[in-house]
């Protein structure tokens, strides 16, 4: 089957490898240090560069920006959770909430086959011309996978949709082993579909990297950490996998590696709702609120993860009280105060964006009114039950926006690459016409 595929034209095809949460800096360090020889070889044949992620810099928003090539004001995914319209109840957007066409839908309309494996925010699977198994947050493999034939295969090999994070309750080592196990089975599935099924566009995403970073970043930084070698070995395994993938692409088939955000060690978590409470912007009926249904009507602002500020506007929320006259001054005041927020004498917030500066499109009304970005090492959180403004949580690694990675096996000379630019680049490689992207083609 592989021979048959190789005989076909290598033009108008593309392989994309996603590595969730992998930082460009770390890859450059590991290639330089000789830990990732395959990647060093791959890099010598093309261009590797840092890339900015979406804002907010989280997987659901960033991968959706990747797959649609438009900003959240058009695709509609601002985060992992929202409040239901006209209510304070949680709502969790899924694939049905993506309001722009995905790369594989665009390709499918032009007769191209796509294989899409483990891309976050694609659950439940929507039918496509090709094969898809969804990534985080996927609940049920059957609903995550299209068509049935792919489900049968994945079920038979014992495919894993995600790492079993609960293992950490047993021990960090148990989690480490589980990360390795999930990666091994994912690699197997990716190589199987790549070798045995027809495709024009192949996308395979590794999410174990992100889980490794969140729970074991401390192991990377500390050479005496019992899992230090595990961390390095995991990147060696990733390197071998990238080598296998590149082998199949050769120098001819366009080959892209990208991540959805970078990662870095967490110095402190910053609880923005606690900060709002302390400054009188947010009030709850209970001492230990569980949801925003426990919020008092006079509240002016609240935060959803990671740092999306919503003004409690009259007319938008059942008990909203901020009038349109107050709105602009309130946002300005919040922005100024947030930029001064410091913990242990260090400033925490690098930038605060107003929604009209970040987003455009027919879904801007649903956008957060303000979004904050932290200085590296500060992890902004929307937890609602915290009483202190800062603290340490159970995660040791957090996200960065500026240090995502983009690689292509072509020499390109473009700076200021954002993840929104990847989709127009891919359609161009596939020789597909499509108007309406917000990003720019990089080749």
């Amino acid at each position, binding site marked *: 089957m592989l021979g048959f595929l190789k005989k076909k034209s290598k033009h108008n095809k593309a392989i994309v490898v996603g590595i969730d949460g992998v930082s460009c800096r770390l890859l450059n360090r590991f290639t330089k240090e000789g830990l990732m020889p395959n990647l060093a070889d791959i890099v010598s044949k093309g261009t590797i560069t840092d890339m900015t992620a979406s804002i907010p810099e989280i997987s659901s928003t960033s991968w959706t920006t990747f797959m649609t090539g438009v900003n959240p004001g058009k695709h509609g995914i601002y985060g*992992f*959770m929202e409040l*239901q*319209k*006209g*209510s*304070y*109840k*949680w*709502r*969790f957007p*899924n*694939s*049905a*909430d993506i309001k722009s066409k995905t790369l594989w839908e665009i390709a499918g309309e032009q007769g191209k086959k796509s294989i899409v494996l483990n891309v976050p925010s694609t659950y*439940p*699977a*929507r*039918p496509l011309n090709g094969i898809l198994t969804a990534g*985080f*947050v996927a*609940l049920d493999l*059957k*609903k995550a*996978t*299209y*068509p*049935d034939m792919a*489900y049968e295969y994945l079920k038979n090999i014992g495919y894993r949709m*995600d790492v079993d*994070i*609960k293992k950490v309750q047993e021990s960090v080592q148990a989690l480490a082993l589980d990360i390795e196990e999930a990666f091994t089975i994912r690699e197997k599935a990716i190589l199987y579909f790549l070798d045995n099924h027809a495709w024009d566009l192949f996308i395979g995403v590794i999410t174990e990297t992100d*889980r490794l970073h*969140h729970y074991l970043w401390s192991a990377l930084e500390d050479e005496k950490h019992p899992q230090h070698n595990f961390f390095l070995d995991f990147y060696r395994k990733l390197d071998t996998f990238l080598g296998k993938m590149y082998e199949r692409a050769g120098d001819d088939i366009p080959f892209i590696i990208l991540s959805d955000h970078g990662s870095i060690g967490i110095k402190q*978590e910053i609880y923005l709702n606690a900060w709002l409470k302390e400054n009188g912007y947010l009030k709850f009926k209970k001492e230990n609120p569980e949801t925003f*249904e426990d919020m008092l*009507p006079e509240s002016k602002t609240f935060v959803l*993860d*990671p740092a999306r500020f919503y003004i409690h506007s009259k*007319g938008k929320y*059942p*008990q909203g009280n901020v009038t349109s006259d107050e709105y602009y001054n309130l946002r300005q005041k919040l922005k100024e105060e947030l930029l001064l927020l410091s913990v242990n004498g260090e400033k925490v917030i690098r930038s605060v964006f107003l929604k009209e500066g970040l987003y455009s499109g027919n879904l801007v009304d649903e956008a957060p009114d303000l979004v904050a970005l932290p200085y590296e090492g500060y*992890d902004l*959180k*929307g*937890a609602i039950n915290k009483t202190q403004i800062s603290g340490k*949580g*159970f*995660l040791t690694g957090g996200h960065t926006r500026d240090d995502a990675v983009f690689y292509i096996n072509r020499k390109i000379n473009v700076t200021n690459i954002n993840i929104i630019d990847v989709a127009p680049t891919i359609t161009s490689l596939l020789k597909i016409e499509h108007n309406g992207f917000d990003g720019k083609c990089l080749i």
Partner: protein
Amino acid sequence: MELNEREKLMALNLEEKINQSKKVIKEAIEKFGTEKLAVAWTGGKDSTTMTWLFREACRDLNIPMPKIMFIDEGYVFEEIWDIVNQLKKDWNLNVIIAKNTDVSDKAKNIGDMIKVSSLNERNRSEIVTLGFDGEEFPFEPESYVGNHLMKTVAMNTFLEENGILALATAIRWDEQTARIEETYFSPRSNPSHVRVQPILHFKERDIWNFIFAYKVPFCVLYNDGYRSLGAKGSTTKMSDIPAWEQDLENTSERAGRGQNKEEIMGKLRDLGYM
């Protein structure tokens, strides 16, 4: 119900499933009579199937059809009204529209704010029970105040005013995991009545096989790719191809609607969110 029992019922062929449903319907009629029994109809594929089965059962027994309750929550698809009006005429149904007009009269458009003080005592006390203490709320049928007033209160008022002891609804076991515990007869309180659920054992595929085999008319929205119909504005389609041509076994019927919140929240918490 035993797990095996449920699996056996779900594995029946279409004719056996139809007979099983008619058996449940006849048992309900025997228990409650047609006067005290009502059929909840949404104009969707499942409750239309159930209504058809009721007609068959009543024809077998040579008795009149029970009342049909249709809840108008203020944001009904035009295409749903079309099928409701057509079948009401063609099947000669006694359809009673349950609508909380005390609420809907106060709003012109979806999203309009309604003052709590403008409502009647019943609606005001329902709002207090909900724990909502705002002065006004938006007219959004799927929001928590709106949903309660326009659906639950409308339904309860219908049950009370008509002295209904049993209400037949068209839920199915395979719709979502949370329905697995449901039984054919399920008692409810406030107001006290019994839910009769005669098509629990139908799968989504069975519904479409039934609709085509018996040439049952259905709402045109299913042609456009809708799989499951809720209120307009909160229901999305999963695909542009007709519902019955979609991969029913491998994709989620209610993905355009509900979600498994607790499980999602658990996964998000593992990654430091929430």
